[in-house]
């Protein structure tokens, strides 16, 4: 098998310390995304196990595999879980689920779990959709913005671009930050435009004062993504006059949250430092779903 450049390694973990048999309440959440799927199991509100894997073309299979991986060798079986909430793009395919809810609410709840109580603005950088969420109370959604149709699929496209450029996805972000100053971003309109532009940036110094370095090319691409996301965040609460601002602390979830080439640039433009997640930020949706499952299947914050 040829080297895979565009994919995050799959991962799973099951707690060795928690005695699940003693737990009063066991709940699980499964988040089936278009590119990756996650499962999270909570015992009395504490994370007991999780899994993060590629979705592939079969949502049902991915869901089964995710929950099995999260259960690990703990001896717990699916039947032992009190309630299982499904969410995400394919969040209607999970055979063992007892409830279904929308992604935004899950991400809000999951992000508070991952980032703590000071969190007010969540930016979910998924493979397919990008969402900016403003929280209120403990974990309610006050307002949210989802990417324009033209800006869909940004996350997965980074994966594909890494594959084309043959640079591992874990490295592209760090590498892009090695530039002294960000070059002009490529097109922020559409990833097809952005890709064709990025692929053309190599070589040919006569067009520019000097040819772009490898790092500058990655920076150019990731800066464009960051810029597009910035517009989404800004729309949440644009002040009458002045620069973009956000309320309270900021947290990133989703696959691109692990790409500092995107997140650091957003932080720089906003002048803030984002909170650090206690676990893999891709788990926010699944953890949120598990928390919602624990609230007795109430699927939204009325």
């Amino acid at each position, binding site marked *: 098998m040829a080297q895979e450049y565009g994919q995050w390694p799959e991962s799973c973990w099951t707690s060795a310390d928690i005695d699940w048999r003693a737990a009063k309440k066991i709940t699980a959440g499964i988040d089936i995304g*278009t590119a990756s799927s996650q499962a999270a199991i909570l015992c009395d509100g504490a994370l007991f196990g999780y899994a993060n894997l590629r979705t*592939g*073309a079969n*949502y049902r299979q991915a869901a089964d595999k995710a929950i099995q991986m999260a259960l690990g060798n703990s001896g717990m079986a699916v039947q032992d879980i009190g309630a299982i909430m499904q969410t995400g*793009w*394919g969040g*209607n*395919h999970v055979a063992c689920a007892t409830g279904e809810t929308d992604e935004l609410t899950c991400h809000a709840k999951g992000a508070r779990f991952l980032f703590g109580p000071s969190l007010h603005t969540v930016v979910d950088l998924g493979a*397919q959709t990008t969402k900016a969420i403003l929280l209120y109370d403990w974990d309610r959604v006050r307002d949210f913005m989802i990417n324009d*149709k*033209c800006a*869909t*699929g940004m996350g*997965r496209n980074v994966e*594909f671009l890494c594959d*084309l*450029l*043959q*640079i591992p996805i874990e490295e592209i972000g760090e590498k892009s930050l090695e530039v002294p100053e960000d070059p002009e971003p490529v097109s922020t309109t*559409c*990833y*097809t*435009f952005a*890709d*064709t532009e990025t*692929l*053309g940036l*190599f*070589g*040919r110094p006569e067009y520019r004062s000097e040819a772009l370095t*490898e790092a500058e*090319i990655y920076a150019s691409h990731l800066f464009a993504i960051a810029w597009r996301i910035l517009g989404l965040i800004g729309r949440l609460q644009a002040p009458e006059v002045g620069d973009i601002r956000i309320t309270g602390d900021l947290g990133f979830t989703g696959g691109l949250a692990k790409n500092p080439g995107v997140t650091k640039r957003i932080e720089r433009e906003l002048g803030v430092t984002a909170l650090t997640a206690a676990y893999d930020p891709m788990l926010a949706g699944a953890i949120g779903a598990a928390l919602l499952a624990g609230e007795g299947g109430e699927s939204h914050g009325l």
Partner: protein
Amino acid sequence: MLTAGIDIGVENVKAVILKDGAIVGRGKGRSGGVGRNAAAEAALAGALQEAGAASADLSGTVATGKGKYDLLFADKQVTEATAAARAAKHLYPDATCVMSLGADETLVLTFNAKDKIGQAVLNEKCAAGLGSFLRKMAMLLELTPDEMSALPPVAPGGATVNDGCVVFAELDALSLLNQSVSSREIASALTDAAAIRACTVLNDITIPMLDCVVLLGGLTRNHAFVQALQTRSGVDFTIPSEAEYAGALGAALVASDH
């Protein structure tokens, strides 16, 4: 005289060694991003090996393709249009039109009475990256290139996706996936949508239809796509066996001019 032509695209690099108008060696590999020069060197080495020659034997090396300016060792660069025109005219002296389908670019050329290029049309940005798009969708749907190539045409009343924009097409494909439509049916719809996008480039200058339209480029290996393009455009394409190496062939022909 021995010349080399290298076609370095966004996905693959192809090298051809030409001896007195005949291909005597071919090489191919992935092109990568920063690794383009190395990839081209490797492809050229492969071609030379097949030709049983050494790089010192070459009297000229010409590069074409999106990465042509990344190659440190090429003597000259020519645009993809020139390379495609040279290759088509070399293979089919009667060609009246060439369509080249790459991973990133779709290109259509017509010849005028003097066998010079009359009009050249490059795809609009909305139709960029069709080859890459189909590969990306194959990855999403977990289908191999052979499976993509063997897809049936879109069935009447079958699933369809947006044909105006590949980004929207992808979104529609994901919706279909969620509605448990089979991967193959979705892939057929995507192939058709890509063919429609390619067809818009062709339509720009070739109505009424021209008699000998030569189809070149890597996408010609995808039979389902070619079939869909033929159906959508009504053009009966002439596809040479060297279609995939045509860019490199054209470049090598230019090299032999000097």
